[in-house]
């Protein structure tokens, strides 16, 4: 198992500045700007979630349990997970296994990467489409115990996160194809 090194195009991209863990990624342009917003958003969601669970624990111990804190914590969590997934994808930190792939030549590997990525992108398209439909159909349903919050607001985290990952994948695929062209004489 490698921590995603095989997910990187075998012939890297000079434009990509690999961000060190935990620090905001560098780079300009919409793609990188969006990356910083995502990181910031996910960090804020994780902090909010932690505080909500703390409030929930304290209020329960104090004898005044606040059930909305639990609901809001899982709400923040869903958003942290699906937006955070794209932060992970951008940094190529997704777990993958390169045991078989690393035996091929760089050229074959580059093609395999392309096939995998296109498949992943298609999967993400399906998730965005189906997730949007699900969000639409759950509009009437209230988020557990919170009548003022439609279930749509949590459901929509899935298509939004998948759309962000789809954008990242297309960005990576575009760079990769440019690299492949460069490799062909």
């Amino acid at each position, binding site marked *: 198992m490698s*921590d995603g090194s095989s997910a990187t195009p075998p012939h890297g991209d000079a434009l990509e500045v690999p961000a060190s863990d935990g620090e905001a990624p560098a780079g300009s342009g919409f793609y990188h700007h969006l990356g910083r917003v995502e990181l910031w958003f996910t960090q804020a969601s994780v902090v909010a979630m932690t505080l909500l669970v703390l409030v929930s624990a304290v209020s329960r111990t104090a004898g005044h349990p606040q059930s909305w804190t639990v609901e809001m*914590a899982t709400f923040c*969590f869903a958003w942290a997970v699906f937006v955070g997934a794209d932060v*992970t994808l951008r940094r190529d930190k997704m777990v*993958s*296994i390169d045991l*078989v792939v690393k035996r091929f030549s760089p050229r074959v590997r580059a093609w395999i990467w392309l096939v995998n990525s296109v498949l992943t992108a298609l999967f993400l398209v399906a998730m965005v489409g189906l997730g949007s439909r699900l969000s639409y*159909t759950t509009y009437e349903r209230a988020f557990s115990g919170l009548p003022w919050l439609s279930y749509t607001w949590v459901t929509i985290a899935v298509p939004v996160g998948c759309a962000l990952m789809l954008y990242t994948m297309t960005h990576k695929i575009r760079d990769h194809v440019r690299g492949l062209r460069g490799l062909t004489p």
Partner: protein
Amino acid sequence: MIAVLGVFLVLVALGMPVAFAIGISGFVFFLGQETLTLTIPVQLTLTQTQNFAILAIPLFILAGNLLNETGITRRLMHFASALTGHLPAGLAHVNFVLAFMLGGVTSSAIGDATMLGRVLGPGMIARKYAPGFAAGIIGSASIITTMVPPGTGMILYGTIGEVSIGRLFTAGVVPGVLITIFLMIAVSITARRRGYPPERPHRAPLKEIGRTGITSIWALLFPVILILGLRFGYFTPSEAGAFAVAYAVAVGVLLYRELTWKRFLRGLGDTVTDVGMIMLLIGLSGSWGYGLTWDRVPQRLMSVLIGISENPTVIMFILVGALLVAGMFMDSTVLILLLTTMLVMVAERVGIDAVHFGIVMVLTLTLGLLTPPVGIVMYIVCSIFDASIPAYVRQSFYLFLALLAVIVLTILVPDIALWLPDLIY
């Protein structure tokens, strides 16, 4: 589900990130079932994150990452060195004791291997430890972390298998101690044979042990507070996770005064990546769980196993053997996710205690992190010391044997896992 498994294995072999391979193969299941609508996999992915108990995982990861930024590791290392530095190959012993104590604040083996390598690796190179041996020491030490509470493996197993996380945490303590002792014995054998030097000429004076122990007290107290708090119902596992974060911030800001705003943001940023990676896996594995139940796979597996033997110990050995092999090829988190529901059901039906089985299962699967061909911890430690994999396997053989011995012992003597939880629950 056989088609699903086939698609999954092909995609993983082609190097696709495991999370997407799980997602795509799970999707294939729903494509093949005309009676099920395609929005179910999306719903299942979301539902996985809407479980309050699973919040414990990101929270403990955050707490561990923040504690790493507080300077607690350095203090624990001084204490571990005072305790065991006088033994032959002192640095190795320090490493195991440190890993045990650190296990009480951190929750993942991979994180610990990276950190231990960074902290103690240079010293081992300076003392001319064989690279494969040094890599083995750091790698096997990181396995201790998964047993000492809190551990993400236990939280995951407990949440999915509906087993008490408090009991699981408690049950990991004795195996954790045993692994530490067994590894120390294994290192002593190698150290005497190769003449690795102690870290310090004499046993540390009691005064030094006391002083370093007191500065480390906030790390040492944490697992105790955790176990007692869960036992007496002061908090649920998720609340314990949030409490752990608050504890880390309090220790870092008020007591050690090393946690700056910049370090806090760094710890938070690391957490985002870890959470994105693990939770996407967990989310997308939802359709697998659904498919396995729909196809009644646990029941089928059970009838096969009961056909072989009805003796719980024999069945446990068969399962552990299979898990050991699976763990060599697949990440432990993924396997816990995909197999827990099924195996807990099997274990309970044949009369194996679910807590006992959980300890053995998590330990067996994490061992796969250390072994070729795909062990993520193995890759990390071998790259730190520039060790070749054959040299690593050869020179760390005794260490692996020690870990295997603990697994076999825990299977044969359930009380190793169950004694402590039975005592306090």
